[in-house]
Protein backbone atom coordinates (compact mmCIF):
# COMPACT_ATOMS: atom_id res chain seq x y z
CA UNK A 1 0.00 0.00 0.00
CA UNK A 2 1.55 3.27 -1.03
CA UNK A 3 1.77 6.29 1.21
CA UNK A 4 -0.90 8.04 -0.82
CA UNK A 5 -3.30 5.11 -0.59
CA UNK A 6 -2.70 4.93 3.12
CA UNK A 7 -3.49 8.59 3.52
CA UNK A 8 -6.64 8.35 1.42
CA UNK A 9 -7.72 5.32 3.42
CA UNK A 10 -7.20 7.07 6.73
CA UNK A 11 -9.00 10.10 5.38
CA UNK A 12 -12.00 8.06 4.27
CA UNK A 13 -12.27 6.29 7.62
CA UNK A 14 -11.89 9.58 9.43
CA UNK A 15 -14.56 11.28 7.37
CA UNK A 16 -16.91 8.36 7.91
CA UNK A 17 -16.32 8.43 11.65
CA UNK A 18 -16.87 12.18 11.73
CA UNK A 19 -20.23 11.87 10.00
CA UNK A 20 -21.39 8.91 12.03
CA UNK A 21 -20.16 10.19 15.40
CA UNK A 22 -23.46 11.66 16.67
CA UNK A 23 -25.06 8.26 16.30
CA UNK A 24 -22.06 6.29 17.50
CA UNK A 25 -21.67 8.31 20.69
CA UNK A 26 -24.87 10.26 21.29
CA UNK A 27 -24.13 11.13 24.91
CA UNK A 28 -20.91 12.86 23.86
CA UNK A 29 -22.33 14.82 20.98
CA UNK A 30 -21.77 18.22 22.62
CA UNK A 31 -18.20 17.38 23.60
CA UNK A 32 -17.58 16.25 20.04
CA UNK A 33 -19.08 19.47 18.75
CA UNK A 34 -16.62 21.31 20.97
CA UNK A 35 -13.83 19.25 19.49
CA UNK A 36 -14.60 20.80 16.10
CA UNK A 37 -14.58 24.21 17.73
CA UNK A 38 -11.12 23.49 19.11
CA UNK A 39 -9.99 22.49 15.63
CA UNK A 40 -11.10 25.88 14.31
CA UNK A 41 -9.34 27.61 17.22
CA UNK A 42 -6.08 25.83 16.51
CA UNK A 43 -6.19 26.21 12.73
CA UNK A 44 -6.97 29.92 12.83
CA UNK A 45 -4.26 30.62 15.39
CA UNK A 46 -1.74 28.77 13.31
CA UNK A 47 -2.29 30.98 10.24
CA UNK A 48 -0.61 33.88 11.97
CA UNK A 49 1.35 31.99 14.57
CA UNK A 50 2.74 28.99 12.81
CA UNK A 51 2.79 30.13 9.21
CA UNK A 52 3.45 33.84 9.42
CA UNK A 53 5.38 33.78 12.66
CA UNK A 54 3.14 36.31 14.37
CA UNK A 55 2.12 34.80 17.68
CA UNK A 56 -1.14 36.30 18.78
CA UNK A 57 -2.27 35.99 22.36
CA UNK A 58 -5.55 37.71 21.64
CA UNK A 59 -7.26 35.88 18.78
CA UNK A 60 -10.15 35.23 21.13
CA UNK A 61 -11.06 38.85 20.41
CA UNK A 62 -12.56 37.80 17.09
CA UNK A 63 -14.37 34.85 18.62
CA UNK A 64 -16.12 37.15 21.05
CA UNK A 65 -16.95 39.71 18.38
CA UNK A 66 -18.56 36.94 16.36
CA UNK A 67 -20.53 35.64 19.30
CA UNK A 68 -21.90 39.03 20.24
CA UNK A 69 -22.63 40.10 16.65
CA UNK A 70 -24.71 37.01 16.03
CA UNK A 71 -26.56 37.39 19.33
CA UNK A 72 -27.34 41.02 18.54
CA UNK A 73 -28.65 40.13 15.08
CA UNK A 74 -30.78 37.39 16.54
CA UNK A 75 -32.12 39.65 19.27
CA UNK A 76 -32.74 42.83 17.32
CA UNK A 77 -33.56 41.89 13.76
CA UNK A 78 -36.48 39.55 14.44
CA UNK A 79 -35.93 37.20 11.53
CA UNK A 80 -37.06 33.91 12.98
CA UNK A 81 -34.69 31.27 14.22
CA UNK A 82 -33.05 30.04 11.05
CA UNK A 83 -33.06 33.40 9.30
CA UNK A 84 -31.69 35.20 12.31
CA UNK A 85 -29.10 32.54 12.94
CA UNK A 86 -27.91 32.41 9.34
CA UNK A 87 -27.80 36.17 9.08
CA UNK A 88 -26.07 36.35 12.44
CA UNK A 89 -23.41 33.89 11.41
CA UNK A 90 -22.68 35.74 8.18
CA UNK A 91 -22.48 39.13 9.88
CA UNK A 92 -20.40 37.67 12.69
CA UNK A 93 -17.71 36.54 10.29
CA UNK A 94 -17.76 39.85 8.46
CA UNK A 95 -17.71 41.93 11.62
CA UNK A 96 -14.73 40.05 12.98
CA UNK A 97 -12.88 40.33 9.67
CA UNK A 98 -13.64 44.02 9.55
CA UNK A 99 -12.14 44.56 13.01
CA UNK A 100 -9.01 42.71 11.87
CA UNK A 101 -8.89 44.91 8.79
CA UNK A 102 -9.16 48.09 10.87
CA UNK A 103 -6.69 47.08 13.56
CA UNK A 104 -4.31 45.33 11.19
CA UNK A 105 -2.24 48.22 9.83
CA UNK A 106 -1.29 49.46 13.26
CA UNK A 107 -1.17 46.28 15.31
CA UNK A 108 0.52 44.11 12.67
CA UNK A 109 3.28 46.69 12.36
CA UNK A 110 4.41 45.42 15.76
CA UNK A 111 6.73 42.46 15.73
CA UNK A 112 7.50 39.50 17.95
CA UNK A 113 6.64 39.83 21.59
CA UNK A 114 5.27 43.34 21.10
CA UNK A 115 2.63 41.96 18.79
CA UNK A 116 1.91 39.12 21.22
CA UNK A 117 1.38 41.40 24.18
CA UNK A 118 -0.54 43.99 22.21
CA UNK A 119 -3.01 41.34 21.08
CA UNK A 120 -3.25 40.16 24.67
CA UNK A 121 -4.11 43.69 25.69
CA UNK A 122 -6.75 43.93 22.97
CA UNK A 123 -8.57 40.80 24.04
CA UNK A 124 -8.59 41.70 27.73
CA UNK A 125 -9.67 45.26 26.96
CA UNK A 126 -12.49 43.80 24.88
CA UNK A 127 -13.56 41.63 27.82
CA UNK A 128 -13.58 44.63 30.13
CA UNK A 129 -15.45 46.84 27.70
CA UNK A 130 -18.00 44.14 26.97
CA UNK A 131 -18.52 43.59 30.67
CA UNK A 132 -19.46 47.22 31.10
CA UNK A 133 -21.52 47.85 27.97
CA UNK A 134 -25.20 47.71 28.76
CA UNK A 135 -26.31 47.36 25.15
CA UNK A 136 -24.84 43.90 25.07
CA UNK A 137 -25.82 42.98 28.57
CA UNK A 138 -22.74 44.20 30.41
CA UNK A 139 -21.53 41.67 32.96
CA UNK A 140 -24.64 39.57 32.58
CA UNK A 141 -23.94 38.94 28.94
CA UNK A 142 -26.50 37.91 26.35
CA UNK A 143 -28.60 34.86 25.72
CA UNK A 144 -29.21 33.34 22.33
CA UNK A 145 -32.55 32.06 21.05
CA UNK A 146 -33.81 28.61 21.92
CA UNK A 147 -33.36 25.90 19.35
CA UNK A 148 -36.85 25.29 17.93
CA UNK A 149 -36.59 21.52 17.70
CA UNK A 150 -36.14 18.38 19.75
CA UNK A 151 -33.24 18.05 22.18
CA UNK A 152 -31.69 15.11 20.35
CA UNK A 153 -31.79 17.07 17.11
CA UNK A 154 -30.20 20.09 18.75
CA UNK A 155 -27.07 18.21 19.63
CA UNK A 156 -26.69 16.83 16.13
CA UNK A 157 -27.53 20.16 14.53
CA UNK A 158 -24.70 21.96 16.29
CA UNK A 159 -22.34 19.07 15.86
CA UNK A 160 -22.71 19.14 12.09
CA UNK A 161 -22.62 22.92 12.00
CA UNK A 162 -19.30 23.05 13.81
CA UNK A 163 -17.92 20.06 11.92
CA UNK A 164 -18.78 21.79 8.65
CA UNK A 165 -17.14 24.97 9.83
CA UNK A 166 -14.01 23.08 10.81
CA UNK A 167 -13.99 21.31 7.45
CA UNK A 168 -14.45 24.59 5.61
CA UNK A 169 -11.61 26.16 7.53
CA UNK A 170 -9.35 23.22 6.82
CA UNK A 171 -10.12 23.15 3.10
CA UNK A 172 -9.72 26.91 2.71
CA UNK A 173 -6.41 26.87 4.49
CA UNK A 174 -5.20 23.88 2.54
CA UNK A 175 -5.83 25.76 -0.68
CA UNK A 176 -4.28 28.96 0.60
CA UNK A 177 -1.17 27.32 1.99
CA UNK A 178 -0.58 25.47 -1.31
CA UNK A 179 -0.21 28.65 -3.31
CA UNK A 180 1.61 31.95 -3.16
CA UNK A 181 -0.21 32.91 0.04
CA UNK A 182 1.43 30.10 1.98
CA UNK A 183 4.80 30.95 0.50
CA UNK A 184 4.41 34.62 1.39
CA UNK A 185 3.55 33.80 4.99
CA UNK A 186 6.55 31.49 5.18
CA UNK A 187 8.81 34.22 3.86
CA UNK A 188 7.44 36.64 6.43
CA UNK A 189 8.04 34.11 9.17
CA UNK A 190 11.53 33.14 8.09
CA UNK A 191 12.87 36.60 7.33
CA UNK A 192 10.46 39.49 7.11
CA UNK A 193 13.15 42.03 6.29
CA UNK A 194 14.39 39.89 3.44
CA UNK A 195 10.84 39.56 2.14
CA UNK A 196 10.49 43.35 2.19
CA UNK A 197 13.84 43.71 0.46
CA UNK A 198 12.51 41.42 -2.28
CA UNK A 199 9.51 43.62 -2.83
CA UNK A 200 6.89 41.45 -1.15
CA UNK A 201 3.87 43.37 0.14
CA UNK A 202 4.28 41.97 3.62
CA UNK A 203 1.75 44.28 5.25
CA UNK A 204 -0.92 43.26 2.80
CA UNK A 205 -0.35 39.56 3.33
CA UNK A 206 -0.30 39.90 7.11
CA UNK A 207 -3.55 41.80 7.15
CA UNK A 208 -5.24 39.34 4.81
CA UNK A 209 -4.05 36.43 6.93
CA UNK A 210 -5.36 38.03 10.10
CA UNK A 211 -8.69 38.81 8.42
CA UNK A 212 -9.06 35.20 7.35
CA UNK A 213 -8.34 33.98 10.86
CA UNK A 214 -10.76 36.56 12.24
CA UNK A 215 -13.45 35.58 9.76
CA UNK A 216 -13.48 31.92 10.73
CA UNK A 217 -13.20 32.75 14.41
CA UNK A 218 -16.17 35.08 14.05
CA UNK A 219 -18.23 32.33 12.45
CA UNK A 220 -17.15 29.98 15.22
CA UNK A 221 -18.19 32.50 17.86
CA UNK A 222 -21.63 32.85 16.36
CA UNK A 223 -22.24 29.12 16.27
CA UNK A 224 -20.67 28.38 19.64
CA UNK A 225 -22.63 31.20 21.23
CA UNK A 226 -25.82 29.56 20.12
CA UNK A 227 -24.66 26.13 21.17
CA UNK A 228 -23.89 27.29 24.69
CA UNK A 229 -26.95 29.50 24.80
CA UNK A 230 -25.38 32.16 26.95
CA UNK A 231 -22.61 34.60 26.09
CA UNK A 232 -20.61 35.70 29.11
CA UNK A 233 -18.12 38.46 28.34
CA UNK A 234 -15.25 37.08 30.42
CA UNK A 235 -15.93 33.38 30.65
CA UNK A 236 -16.97 32.74 27.07
CA UNK A 237 -16.73 35.56 24.55
CA UNK A 238 -13.32 36.96 25.43
CA UNK A 239 -12.17 34.11 27.61
CA UNK A 240 -8.44 34.78 27.55
CA UNK A 241 -7.23 32.42 30.30
CA UNK A 242 -9.17 29.55 28.76
CA UNK A 243 -10.00 29.73 25.04
CA UNK A 244 -7.35 32.32 24.36
CA UNK A 245 -4.56 30.20 25.80
CA UNK A 246 -5.89 26.97 24.34
CA UNK A 247 -5.71 28.42 20.84
CA UNK A 248 -2.00 28.89 21.21
CA UNK A 249 -1.39 25.68 23.06
CA UNK A 250 -3.21 23.35 20.68
CA UNK A 251 -1.34 24.56 17.64
CA UNK A 252 1.98 24.23 19.44
CA UNK A 253 1.07 20.82 20.80
CA UNK A 254 0.19 19.52 17.38
CA UNK A 255 2.88 21.27 15.42
CA UNK A 256 3.00 24.86 14.22
CA UNK A 257 3.24 25.72 10.59
CA UNK A 258 1.69 22.53 9.33
CA UNK A 259 -1.83 21.85 8.10
CA UNK A 260 -2.70 18.85 10.23
CA UNK A 261 -0.61 19.71 13.26
CA UNK A 262 -3.21 22.02 14.76
CA UNK A 263 -5.93 19.47 14.08
CA UNK A 264 -3.96 16.79 15.87
CA UNK A 265 -3.16 19.18 18.67
CA UNK A 266 -6.81 20.09 19.05
CA UNK A 267 -7.77 16.45 19.28
CA UNK A 268 -5.17 15.52 21.86
CA UNK A 269 -5.79 18.66 23.86
CA UNK A 270 -9.54 18.29 23.93
CA UNK A 271 -9.31 14.67 24.93
CA UNK A 272 -6.86 15.53 27.71
CA UNK A 273 -9.14 18.25 28.91
CA UNK A 274 -12.19 16.02 28.99
CA UNK A 275 -10.23 13.46 30.96
CA UNK A 276 -9.04 16.08 33.41
CA UNK A 277 -12.61 17.32 33.81
CA UNK A 278 -13.96 13.86 34.50
CA UNK A 279 -11.27 12.71 36.89
CA UNK A 280 -9.86 15.85 38.44
CA UNK A 281 -12.90 18.05 38.83
CA UNK A 282 -11.95 21.11 40.78
CA UNK A 283 -8.28 20.80 39.99
CA UNK A 284 -8.70 20.37 36.27
CA UNK A 285 -7.84 24.00 35.55
CA UNK A 286 -4.62 23.71 37.50
CA UNK A 287 -3.84 20.44 35.76
CA UNK A 288 -4.51 22.15 32.44
CA UNK A 289 -2.07 24.90 33.35
CA UNK A 290 0.59 22.34 34.21
CA UNK A 291 -0.13 20.50 30.97
CA UNK A 292 0.38 23.75 29.06
CA UNK A 293 3.65 24.32 30.86
CA UNK A 294 4.84 20.80 30.15
CA UNK A 295 4.09 21.09 26.44
CA UNK A 296 5.78 24.44 26.15
CA UNK A 297 8.91 23.36 27.95
CA UNK A 298 9.30 19.81 26.74
CA UNK A 299 7.55 19.68 23.38
CA UNK A 300 7.87 23.09 21.72
CA UNK A 301 8.19 21.60 18.26
CA UNK A 302 4.88 19.80 18.72
CA UNK A 303 3.79 16.25 18.05
CA UNK A 304 4.19 16.56 14.29
CA UNK A 305 7.69 17.93 14.78
CA UNK A 306 8.50 15.07 17.09
CA UNK A 307 7.06 12.52 14.69
CA UNK A 308 8.98 13.99 11.76
CA UNK A 309 12.14 13.32 13.62
CA UNK A 310 11.28 9.68 14.12
CA UNK A 311 9.79 8.90 10.72
CA UNK A 312 11.17 11.34 8.15
CA UNK A 313 10.59 9.13 5.12
CA UNK A 314 6.98 8.27 5.86
CA UNK A 315 5.92 11.85 6.33
CA UNK A 316 7.85 13.02 3.26
CA UNK A 317 9.71 15.73 5.08
CA UNK A 318 11.45 18.15 2.79
CA UNK A 319 14.69 17.51 4.60
CA UNK A 320 15.34 14.46 2.45
CA UNK A 321 18.57 15.02 0.55
CA UNK A 322 18.15 15.97 -3.13
CA UNK A 323 18.65 13.62 -6.02
CA UNK A 324 21.48 14.46 -8.41
CA UNK A 325 24.43 16.17 -6.81
CA UNK A 326 27.25 17.09 -9.14
CA UNK A 327 30.06 18.39 -6.92
CA UNK A 328 31.25 20.77 -9.62
CA UNK A 329 27.92 22.50 -9.84
CA UNK A 330 26.67 22.20 -6.33
CA UNK A 331 29.42 24.36 -5.02
CA UNK A 332 30.83 22.17 -2.30
Amino acid at each position, binding site marked *: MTSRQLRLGIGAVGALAAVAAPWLAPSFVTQLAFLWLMVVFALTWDIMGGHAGYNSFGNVLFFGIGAYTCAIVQRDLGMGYLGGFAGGIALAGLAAALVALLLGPSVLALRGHYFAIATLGLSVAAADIAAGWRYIGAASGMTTPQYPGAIEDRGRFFYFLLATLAGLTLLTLR*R*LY*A*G*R*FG*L*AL*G*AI*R*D*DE*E*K*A*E*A*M*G*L*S*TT*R*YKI*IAWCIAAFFLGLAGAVAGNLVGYIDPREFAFAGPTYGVWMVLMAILGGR*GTLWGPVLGAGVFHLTQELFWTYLLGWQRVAMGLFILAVVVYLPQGLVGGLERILPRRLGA*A*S*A*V*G*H*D*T*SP*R*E*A*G*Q
Partner: protein
Amino acid sequence: MNAQLEVRNVTKRFGGVVANHDVSLSIPARSIVGLIGPNGSGKTTLFNCIVGYHPIDSGSIRFAGRELSQLPVPQVARLGILRTFQQTRVYRRMTALQNMQISERRARDSLAALFARVPAAVDDEAGSLLEFVGLHGQRFVRAEELSFGQQKLLELAMALMNHPSMLLLDEPTAGISPTLINVLIDRLQRVNLDLGITLFVIEHNMRVIMRLARHIYCLAHGELLASGSPEAIRNDSRVIDAYLGAT
Protein backbone atom coordinates in the same frame (compact mmCIF):
# COMPACT_ATOMS: atom_id res chain seq x y z
CA MET B 1 24.97 61.29 -18.29
CA ASN B 2 23.33 57.93 -18.79
CA ALA B 3 23.34 56.96 -15.15
CA GLN B 4 20.87 54.36 -14.00
CA LEU B 5 21.64 55.03 -10.36
CA GLU B 6 22.67 58.50 -9.28
CA VAL B 7 23.82 59.00 -5.69
CA ARG B 8 24.39 62.64 -4.85
CA ASN B 9 25.91 64.05 -1.66
CA VAL B 10 24.44 61.36 0.55
CA THR B 11 25.15 61.73 4.25
CA LYS B 12 24.03 59.22 6.89
CA ARG B 13 24.66 59.60 10.60
CA PHE B 14 24.04 57.16 13.42
CA GLY B 15 23.94 59.21 16.57
CA GLY B 16 27.39 60.77 16.66
CA VAL B 17 28.98 58.51 14.07
CA VAL B 18 29.00 59.64 10.44
CA ALA B 19 28.75 56.46 8.40
CA ASN B 20 28.49 58.12 5.01
CA HIS B 21 29.62 61.68 4.42
CA ASP B 22 28.75 63.54 1.24
CA VAL B 23 29.08 60.48 -0.97
CA SER B 24 28.38 60.89 -4.65
CA LEU B 25 28.63 58.30 -7.37
CA SER B 26 26.84 57.19 -10.49
CA ILE B 27 26.25 53.77 -11.98
CA PRO B 28 25.63 53.55 -15.73
CA ALA B 29 23.05 51.07 -16.94
CA ARG B 30 24.26 47.56 -17.83
CA SER B 31 27.66 48.16 -16.23
CA ILE B 32 29.52 46.36 -13.48
CA VAL B 33 30.79 48.79 -10.86
CA GLY B 34 32.77 47.90 -7.77
CA LEU B 35 32.71 49.40 -4.27
CA ILE B 36 35.74 48.74 -2.16
CA GLY B 37 37.21 50.09 1.04
CA PRO B 38 38.52 48.88 4.39
CA ASN B 39 36.17 47.55 7.05
CA GLY B 40 33.95 50.19 8.54
CA SER B 41 34.22 52.56 5.60
CA GLY B 42 30.47 52.66 5.13
CA LYS B 43 29.95 50.42 2.13
CA THR B 44 27.06 48.36 3.47
CA THR B 45 25.55 51.46 5.01
CA LEU B 46 25.53 53.04 1.57
CA PHE B 47 23.75 50.02 0.16
CA ASN B 48 21.25 50.19 3.00
CA CYS B 49 20.60 53.84 2.24
CA ILE B 50 20.14 53.22 -1.45
CA VAL B 51 17.49 50.53 -0.96
CA GLY B 52 15.68 52.51 1.70
CA TYR B 53 16.62 50.46 4.75
CA HIS B 54 17.91 53.67 6.38
CA PRO B 55 16.53 57.14 5.84
CA ILE B 56 19.33 59.47 4.74
CA ASP B 57 20.17 62.71 6.49
CA SER B 58 20.86 64.63 3.32
CA GLY B 59 21.43 64.15 -0.38
CA SER B 60 19.54 62.42 -3.13
CA ILE B 61 19.37 58.97 -4.63
CA ARG B 62 17.85 58.68 -8.07
CA PHE B 63 17.18 55.43 -9.86
CA ALA B 64 16.04 55.60 -13.48
CA GLY B 65 15.01 59.15 -12.79
CA ARG B 66 12.99 58.41 -9.64
CA GLU B 67 13.95 59.69 -6.20
CA LEU B 68 14.40 56.72 -3.88
CA SER B 69 15.23 58.34 -0.55
CA GLN B 70 11.64 58.79 0.57
CA LEU B 71 10.42 55.37 -0.44
CA PRO B 72 9.98 52.35 1.87
CA VAL B 73 12.02 49.23 1.23
CA PRO B 74 9.40 47.08 -0.56
CA GLN B 75 8.60 49.90 -2.93
CA VAL B 76 12.25 50.46 -3.83
CA ALA B 77 12.60 46.75 -4.51
CA ARG B 78 9.59 46.80 -6.77
CA LEU B 79 11.22 49.51 -8.87
CA GLY B 80 13.75 46.92 -9.95
CA ILE B 81 16.72 47.48 -7.67
CA LEU B 82 17.51 44.54 -5.38
CA ARG B 83 20.27 43.81 -2.93
CA THR B 84 21.87 40.72 -1.47
CA PHE B 85 23.13 40.57 2.09
CA GLN B 86 26.59 40.17 3.51
CA GLN B 87 25.41 37.39 5.81
CA THR B 88 23.37 35.78 3.01
CA ARG B 89 19.70 35.79 3.82
CA VAL B 90 17.35 33.18 2.48
CA TYR B 91 14.09 31.78 3.80
CA ARG B 92 15.54 29.07 5.95
CA ARG B 93 12.63 26.77 6.59
CA MET B 94 11.41 26.70 3.01
CA THR B 95 12.91 24.59 0.24
CA ALA B 96 15.15 26.08 -2.43
CA LEU B 97 12.33 25.84 -4.91
CA GLN B 98 9.91 27.57 -2.57
CA ASN B 99 12.46 30.31 -1.99
CA MET B 100 12.50 30.81 -5.74
CA GLN B 101 8.74 30.70 -6.12
CA ILE B 102 8.13 33.44 -3.58
CA SER B 103 10.81 35.59 -5.20
CA GLU B 104 8.77 35.89 -8.36
CA ARG B 105 7.92 39.50 -9.05
CA ARG B 106 4.22 40.30 -8.87
CA ALA B 107 3.08 43.79 -9.68
CA ARG B 108 -0.11 43.41 -7.73
CA ASP B 109 -1.60 40.43 -5.94
CA SER B 110 -5.34 40.24 -6.50
CA LEU B 111 -7.47 38.49 -3.91
CA ALA B 112 -8.43 35.79 -6.38
CA ALA B 113 -4.77 35.07 -7.00
CA LEU B 114 -4.52 34.12 -3.32
CA PHE B 115 -6.25 30.85 -3.99
CA ALA B 116 -4.37 29.99 -7.16
CA ARG B 117 -1.55 27.52 -7.20
CA VAL B 118 1.91 28.56 -8.33
CA PRO B 119 1.76 28.76 -12.15
CA ALA B 120 3.78 26.24 -14.12
CA ALA B 121 5.66 29.01 -15.87
CA VAL B 122 6.96 30.21 -12.53
CA ASP B 123 8.04 26.71 -11.61
CA ASP B 124 9.82 26.38 -14.93
CA GLU B 125 11.70 29.63 -14.55
CA ALA B 126 12.61 28.75 -10.98
CA GLY B 127 13.92 25.43 -12.17
CA SER B 128 16.05 26.90 -14.91
CA LEU B 129 17.48 29.60 -12.65
CA LEU B 130 18.37 26.96 -10.08
CA GLU B 131 20.00 25.05 -12.90
CA PHE B 132 21.90 28.20 -13.83
CA VAL B 133 23.46 28.39 -10.36
CA GLY B 134 23.87 24.64 -10.09
CA LEU B 135 21.26 23.99 -7.41
CA HIS B 136 18.64 22.16 -9.45
CA GLY B 137 19.41 18.92 -7.63
CA GLN B 138 18.86 20.60 -4.27
CA ARG B 139 15.57 22.23 -5.13
CA PHE B 140 13.64 20.19 -2.54
CA VAL B 141 16.20 20.72 0.19
CA ARG B 142 15.39 23.18 2.98
CA ALA B 143 17.44 26.33 2.64
CA GLU B 144 18.85 25.97 6.15
CA GLU B 145 20.33 22.63 5.20
CA LEU B 146 22.26 23.97 2.23
CA SER B 147 25.91 24.79 2.67
CA PHE B 148 26.91 28.41 3.02
CA GLY B 149 28.11 28.54 -0.60
CA GLN B 150 24.90 26.97 -1.82
CA GLN B 151 22.89 29.53 0.11
CA LYS B 152 24.83 32.32 -1.55
CA LEU B 153 24.01 30.88 -4.94
CA LEU B 154 20.38 30.51 -3.92
CA GLU B 155 20.25 34.12 -2.84
CA LEU B 156 21.56 35.16 -6.25
CA ALA B 157 19.07 32.95 -8.06
CA MET B 158 16.23 34.40 -5.98
CA ALA B 159 17.28 37.90 -6.92
CA LEU B 160 17.34 36.96 -10.60
CA MET B 161 13.89 35.42 -10.24
CA ASN B 162 12.61 38.87 -9.37
CA HIS B 163 13.75 40.32 -12.73
CA PRO B 164 15.68 43.26 -11.37
CA SER B 165 17.30 45.82 -13.61
CA MET B 166 20.01 46.43 -11.03
CA LEU B 167 21.60 44.26 -8.37
CA LEU B 168 23.50 45.50 -5.33
CA LEU B 169 25.70 42.61 -4.25
CA ASP B 170 27.22 42.79 -0.78
CA GLU B 171 30.43 40.73 -0.71
CA PRO B 172 29.13 37.93 -2.94
CA THR B 173 32.33 35.88 -2.69
CA ALA B 174 32.96 36.16 1.04
CA GLY B 175 33.50 32.85 2.79
CA ILE B 176 33.31 30.49 -0.19
CA SER B 177 35.84 28.22 -1.86
CA PRO B 178 38.01 29.40 -4.79
CA THR B 179 36.30 26.95 -7.16
CA LEU B 180 32.94 28.37 -6.29
CA ILE B 181 34.25 31.91 -6.60
CA ASN B 182 35.13 31.24 -10.23
CA VAL B 183 31.66 29.78 -10.82
CA LEU B 184 30.12 32.84 -9.25
CA ILE B 185 32.20 35.29 -11.28
CA ASP B 186 31.22 33.48 -14.45
CA ARG B 187 27.55 33.57 -13.52
CA LEU B 188 27.68 37.26 -12.63
CA GLN B 189 29.30 38.12 -15.92
CA ARG B 190 26.65 36.16 -17.79
CA VAL B 191 23.90 37.82 -15.78
CA ASN B 192 25.31 41.19 -16.76
CA LEU B 193 25.93 40.35 -20.43
CA ASP B 194 22.95 38.15 -21.29
CA LEU B 195 20.29 39.60 -19.01
CA GLY B 196 21.54 43.18 -19.08
CA ILE B 197 21.40 43.54 -15.31
CA THR B 198 23.56 46.30 -13.84
CA LEU B 199 25.79 45.10 -11.01
CA PHE B 200 27.05 47.23 -8.15
CA VAL B 201 29.34 45.02 -6.09
CA ILE B 202 30.92 45.45 -2.66
CA GLU B 203 34.02 43.30 -2.53
CA HIS B 204 37.03 42.65 -0.34
CA ASN B 205 38.55 40.16 -2.74
CA MET B 206 40.68 42.36 -4.99
CA ARG B 207 41.29 39.66 -7.57
CA VAL B 208 37.56 39.24 -8.03
CA ILE B 209 36.63 42.87 -8.27
CA MET B 210 39.47 43.77 -10.59
CA ARG B 211 38.31 41.03 -12.95
CA LEU B 212 34.62 41.84 -12.75
CA ALA B 213 34.30 45.57 -12.62
CA ARG B 214 34.88 48.18 -15.27
CA HIS B 215 34.82 51.01 -12.78
CA ILE B 216 35.57 51.05 -9.07
CA TYR B 217 34.73 53.40 -6.25
CA CYS B 218 36.73 53.35 -3.03
CA LEU B 219 35.30 54.47 0.31
CA ALA B 220 37.28 55.23 3.45
CA HIS B 221 35.95 56.59 6.75
CA GLY B 222 32.57 57.14 5.15
CA GLU B 223 33.87 59.33 2.35
CA LEU B 224 34.59 58.73 -1.29
CA LEU B 225 38.34 58.37 -1.54
CA ALA B 226 38.96 57.50 -5.17
CA SER B 227 37.19 56.44 -8.31
CA GLY B 228 38.42 55.04 -11.59
CA SER B 229 39.27 51.99 -13.67
CA PRO B 230 40.62 48.88 -11.93
CA GLU B 231 44.19 49.67 -13.04
CA ALA B 232 43.97 53.21 -11.77
CA ILE B 233 42.56 52.13 -8.42
CA ARG B 234 45.11 49.35 -8.07
CA ASN B 235 47.93 51.84 -8.38
CA ASP B 236 46.31 54.64 -6.39
CA SER B 237 48.50 55.32 -3.36
CA ARG B 238 45.59 56.71 -1.36
CA VAL B 239 43.72 53.44 -1.76
CA ILE B 240 46.75 51.43 -0.78
CA ASP B 241 47.27 53.62 2.27
CA ALA B 242 43.65 53.32 3.28
CA TYR B 243 43.86 49.54 3.32
CA LEU B 244 47.26 49.37 4.95
CA GLY B 245 46.45 52.08 7.45
CA ALA B 246 43.10 50.62 8.45
CA THR B 247 43.14 48.64 11.69
